[in-house]
């Protein structure tokens, strides 16, 4: 049996009918065509499916679509505004924080949640914030550097020219 739910995804209202066992990841990928969130394990271990639910990172493979009712979901597709990469995306591109790219969407959202709460995080705080997101390609070195660079870019942008 399906239930009608309403939520906001990347700022847009969404109304859709979902069965009770549908995960948020399935809703995003299969129903809404937002394939940026990846499934690396389906068990909440790898973090590739990380999206923000009301600003906080969740493994969307472990969240039921029904639990997102009335809430705000942000996926990687919602990061760039008006065709412009946001500063986190820009930093990942420039600093080499991307290799195969499979962990990247989840990594970006985990990092965004950190930077929104803590504009100037320490390296330990960055590592802790992305510790639920596995990456096999980079050894995390350039990802940590990308997040730090994004923090610098954001603070510079806030100060203005």
């Amino acid at each position: 049996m399906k239930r009608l739910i309403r939520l906001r995804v990347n700022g847009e209202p969404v109304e859709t009918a979902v069965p009770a066992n549908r995960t948020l990841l399935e809703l995003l990928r299969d129903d809404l065509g937002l394939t940026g969130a990846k499934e690396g394990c389906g068990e909440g271990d790898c973090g590739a499916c990380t999206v923000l639910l009301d600003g906080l990172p969740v493994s969307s493979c472990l969240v039921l679509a029904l639990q997102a009712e009335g809430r705000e979901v942000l996926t990687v597709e919602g990061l760039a505004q008006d065709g412009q990469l946001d500063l986190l995306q820009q930093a990942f591109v420039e600093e080499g924080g991307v290799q195969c790219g499979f962990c990247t969407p989840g990594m970006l959202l985990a990092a965004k949640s950190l930077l929104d709460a803590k504009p100037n995080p320490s390296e330990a705080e960055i590592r802790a914030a992305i510790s639920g997101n596995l990456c096999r390609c980079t050894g995390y070195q350039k990802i940590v550097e990308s997040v730090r660079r994004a923090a610098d870019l954001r603070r510079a942008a806030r100060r203005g020219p």
Partner: protein
Amino acid sequence: MKRDFQVLGGRAPRVDAGDKVTGQALYAADLKRPGMLFGALAHSPVAHARIVGVNADRARSLPGVKAVLLGADVPQVRFGVSPARYDETVLALDRVRYAGDEVAAVAAVDPDTALAAAGLVEVEYEELPAVLDASAALLPGAPQIHDMYPGNICAEVHQEFGDVAQARAQAEVVRRDVFTSKMQSGAFLEPQCALAEFDHAGRLTLWSATQTPHYVQRTLAMVLGLPEHRVRVVMPRVGGGFGPKASASSMEIATCLLARATGKPVKTLFSREQVFLHGRGRHQFRHEMETGIRRDGTLVFLEHRAILDGGAFASFGIATVYYAGSLLAGPYRLPNMKYDGWRVVTNKPACGAQRGHGAVHARALFEQQLDLLAEEIGMDPFELRLKNVMQAGDVTCNELNMSSLGMRECLEAVRSDCGWDEKRRQGRRPGRGIGMACGFFVSGAGYPIYRSRTPHCTVRVRLDENGGGVQVLSGAAEIGQGSDTMLATITAEALGIPLDHVTVRSGDTDLALDLGAYSSRTTLMTGSAAKEAAESVLRQIQEALARATGEPAGDFSFVRGLLHLRGLPHCVEAIRAEFQKERRGYSGLPAEGPLTFREASRFAFLERGLITGAGQYRPPPLGGGFKGAAVGTSPAYGCSAQVAEVEVDLETGQVKVLRITGAHDCGQAVNRTQVEGQMHGSMSMGLGEALTEQVLFDARGRILNPNFSDYKIPTALDAPELRALIVDSHEPNGPFGAKEVGEGGIMPTIPAVLNAIRDATGAVIDELPATPERVLAAIRKLGRHGPAR
């Protein structure tokens, strides 16, 4: 040799980075086709059994199920990696050989139905005694897993170079050690996924998360009985491979057979558990080495015996068992080397190639032995290596030619960067340790997997008819390592144009031939082919300009996309005027200054018609005449040195790696950011293999930890600071002097960590991974017997 490059050797962003940070990059699981069905496989729950009966009635009658294939429904054509060891079939017919062997394939309207149907296939098994480790497999009377492997030996190697018996008599210090490891997983983040579709002319397209589209194409053609040109294999973006995605799988073939049976596109996606069941990661090794030196540190001989537990099928195993021996012949001068290796089959998931292939655990023991030998003669570990390192131009005892080799420079770079001499001078502090090691690796396998004189790759560079754009068409496999960016960079450099003029299309058997992403081959081989193709395009533009102006063709070149000429640019005005006339209403056209590449290449098209350049690469004949000489040969070798600094809790055995400093000679770096990224990734994978990663089995051969919660790869909190130092050299056989960085960087990591643990504790770790239990046991053993050092 230092050269000025325009784009090469810089830090440009990857060409695919923008798509990957926005979610626009599509991976196999993201693809959809109209009317698509979903595939699922049924796996054997038992390690070794005869199939007595199969009943698919319940599965077939489940609503939504469109096809159920059993062993009897599919071609029983054997396939695998090495043609001499084709030992796999798509679905088991009468026998299963490991817990995970595929017994049925199902297509249904949605993934849940497909999975449910796979679970409804009833198979009656008559269990056979299973062989779960290599030593049991080798015992007389052990159950035989394949008729084609008597004694369960899938491949064996016996080689001797120099005279080990005589050398042993000359050695002054000799050590014998045994080292064992556990099976490991590639643990790429993207599970395998395949989508197959036949068009109405009966031509098959398979989109697959593979790293070897060419080998998959050949296997599909062979098993499905189609000519190769009726089979197209396409890689979408691929989320890491590291080796285990380097061969065709039953899942890929079954997906194609389901598409054929239903007349619909079919997509099959592995769960993480299936990634573990399919395996093809690192073999389980047992190495025994006897190594002798003189008191002055000169390396005299190595006698090496290795037993590889390879699981149920050969996969890459023949190459693995050769690599495990042959790649110890460098980067030190080693005149006498004897190697005996056996690659054994057992009732476990098949092992294959994983980053560094067969050489990684052999290197881990050998580099520990060098440290122990250095200590016995009172020599610094760096000095012992420096005393023996090879240099460019040296040839190993097994005829591997070091056409470039910055081994000494790597050693010097890490030694100074990490402050080795000061840290060693401070003396030992219990619980704190520092260790080092070296390694080297091929820059592309010298021969294809199947016997052939085929070029290893072809590349076309095509000039956009409108001018300005350059398209690189290649079959190279971009799996995250950055080969698309490498191809764009080399093409741009050869033409003298900015990177943004170049578009790369790759990973598609319709575009070009390429053996794929393995053996760290793409930069040297496909890069060489791209350079050749781009140079041909440049020549054609030069000739068009020369004919129009009467100037010699060689006087024309491009620098950052602008025409650079010796002498006067007579032709510029006429060419520019024509270009502008064709573009009435356009804005932003070049109006003054030197002719742009856009204008010049449009002019060249108008003069000559379609301009494409062709390039290909085939290595020169390599290696000696002895049996197995082909494995380990390469047009070039990359090398690296690393230092690991660790903290060991002497009460619990817990190891924390504080920092790894690595230097790698990659020839001329194509993109420094990407080179560092490959080095970081190697170090991180090596760290996981050193400390935490092991596939565990229960007593019946079933995997206990087929998930990321119990199979532990490093997280951001486990990974230490990774420092990557690039040692540039010039490789004469590589494009613009470039060679590998993809795999060589993993060689030193495990022994550097183990040597650091020994420095911290005095204990020798003789089994991977160095879990707290093993480290603690090694420390306790010291208490009873005194330090090993």
